[in-house]
């Protein structure tokens, strides 16, 4: 299999402080890869560096043969990377429809954009009921659905998801994970950052464990889920 995304020796700094040190990641086409780790381990930073939101100090990020270093976030998005950021970051003062339309910003054909919005609404029927509402008035679960739906409009080949279950009721989390499984089944490669490591490993093929800005472990999801050290640290002892 060929790597869809390859991260080599990635270093990122935040105002002089080392946030990521020598990160190596590989994501193959069709995989679901989980990034696990404690708060501050560098999971969100990794996703933001891949999307171009943070400057890369050294190292390479290669997506489908293109080097992403020094490309702007909008150019990276147009290459086919979708990013559902931490905290959802929907446009709260705009309507649900406008949020979805903005998801299709790079699509030239209005008709094509409308078709894709319909597809997204088929995945999230709740959003159809709220289509003319201001996005800020949606519940947390609906906002997360909108954030994912907005990213799907561009039909990304690679979808980066940052804590999609954060702050949501268990039933809603279950729905979201079912949707992710469905999106993956349609051919989208996924990188998933999750606090809910159990759910993430149940969905993922492989996982990386980050600690203090470095990769501490990488293995198949099944192996990580059974590893006593991982279980103790991220899955909670039972």
């Amino acid at each position, binding site marked *: 299999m060929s790597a869809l995304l390859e991260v080599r020796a990635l270093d990122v700094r935040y105002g002089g402080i080392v946030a990521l040190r020598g990160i190596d990641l590989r994501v193959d086409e069709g995989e679901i890869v989980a990034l696990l780790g404690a708060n501050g381990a560098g999971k969100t930073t990794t996703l933001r560096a891949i999307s171009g939101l943070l400057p890369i100090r050294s190292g390479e990020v290669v997506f489908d043969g293109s080097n992403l270093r020094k490309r*702007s976030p*909008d150019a990276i998005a147009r290459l086919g990377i979708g990013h559902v950021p931490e905290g959802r*970051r929907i446009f709260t*003062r705009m309507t649900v429809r406008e949020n979805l339309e903005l998801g299709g*910003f790079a699509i030239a054909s209005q008709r094509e954009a409308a078709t894709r919005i319909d597809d997204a609404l088929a995945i999230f029927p709740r959003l159809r009921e709220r289509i003319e509402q201001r996005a800020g008035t949606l519940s947390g679960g609906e906002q997360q659905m909108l954030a994912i739906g907005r*990213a799907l409009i561009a039909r990304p080949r690679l979808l980066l998801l940052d804590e999609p279950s954060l702050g949501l009721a268990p039933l809603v989390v279950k729905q979201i994970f079912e949707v992710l499984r469905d999106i993956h089944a349609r051919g989208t490669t996924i990188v998933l950052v999750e606090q809910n490591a159990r759910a993430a490993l149940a969905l993922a093929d492989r996982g990386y464990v980050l600690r203090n800005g470095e990769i501490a472990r990488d293995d198949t999801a099944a192996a990580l889920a059974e590893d006593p050290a991982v279980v103790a640290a991220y899955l909670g002892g039972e």
Partner: protein
Amino acid sequence: MHEFLAQLANGVELGAIYALIALGYTLVYGILELINFAHGDVYTFGSFVALGILVGLRAAGALHGAGLILGIAAALIAAILASALLNAGIERLAYRRLRKAPRLAPLITAIGVSFMLENLIELWQGSAPVPFPNVIPNPQLQIGALEVGVQQIVVVALAIVTMIALHFFVQRSKLGKAMRAVAQDRDAASLVGINVDRTIAMTFLIAGALAGVAGFVGGVSFGSAWFLNGFGAGLRAFTAAVLGGIGNIAGAMLGGFLIGMLESFSTWLIGGQWSNVAVFSVLILVLVFRPSGLLGETLPEKV
């Protein structure tokens, strides 16, 4: 009653000009959280460009019959283009490189750009007011007890049409939506494929175009252009934008008309030398008691 209506008409006319300028402050603030202090001078520049075109055409004897309409249109379009390009040029040269600097840096830069433009315009046009060609015929019309000039009607109509066009542009067009998205959340906008730098440049272009319309109608309305016009008009328009809620488009229009009325009625009732006091007292009162303005969001949007 007669005088009251005349002042009302004056206030609407002044207000239309302030509203157009205030929109420029509010658009730029909405997207960059920057008070573009040079904006008033972009308005002055537009006025002088329109004046130059009209003077040139009049000297060439082209302002007769259909040529008059064409000449007025040419002056208006030239003012729009000149102010739009100037404003976008300021952003490109002065503000863009400060995008990641502390907020005070672009603010001080804006004040510097303002001084520079004022001095350049003074070098170009001199320090005395220059009479604006009196090209729009101005017979007085009697509507009931209200007496208005045709010029006043043209000025207000032009401003209102411009504002309606802006409203539809911002609400409906793809670029308008991109502007609103960048204003709300720059990172999220870039993640959906919006080129943030280009969108900010377009915002300056549009804000400048509005200042160009204001420059033309201001010249017609005041009958002159002066290198420091933009300083006073800019401060009043800025007050209007704050009164309406800075960053809020409808607020800038409302604030513009209210400040125009306030200036007109305070001049009538307590004297012209006090109208500045009245206008800037409003600025202070708004900043103290309702900093988010009349139509501004009072609820925090960011968690």
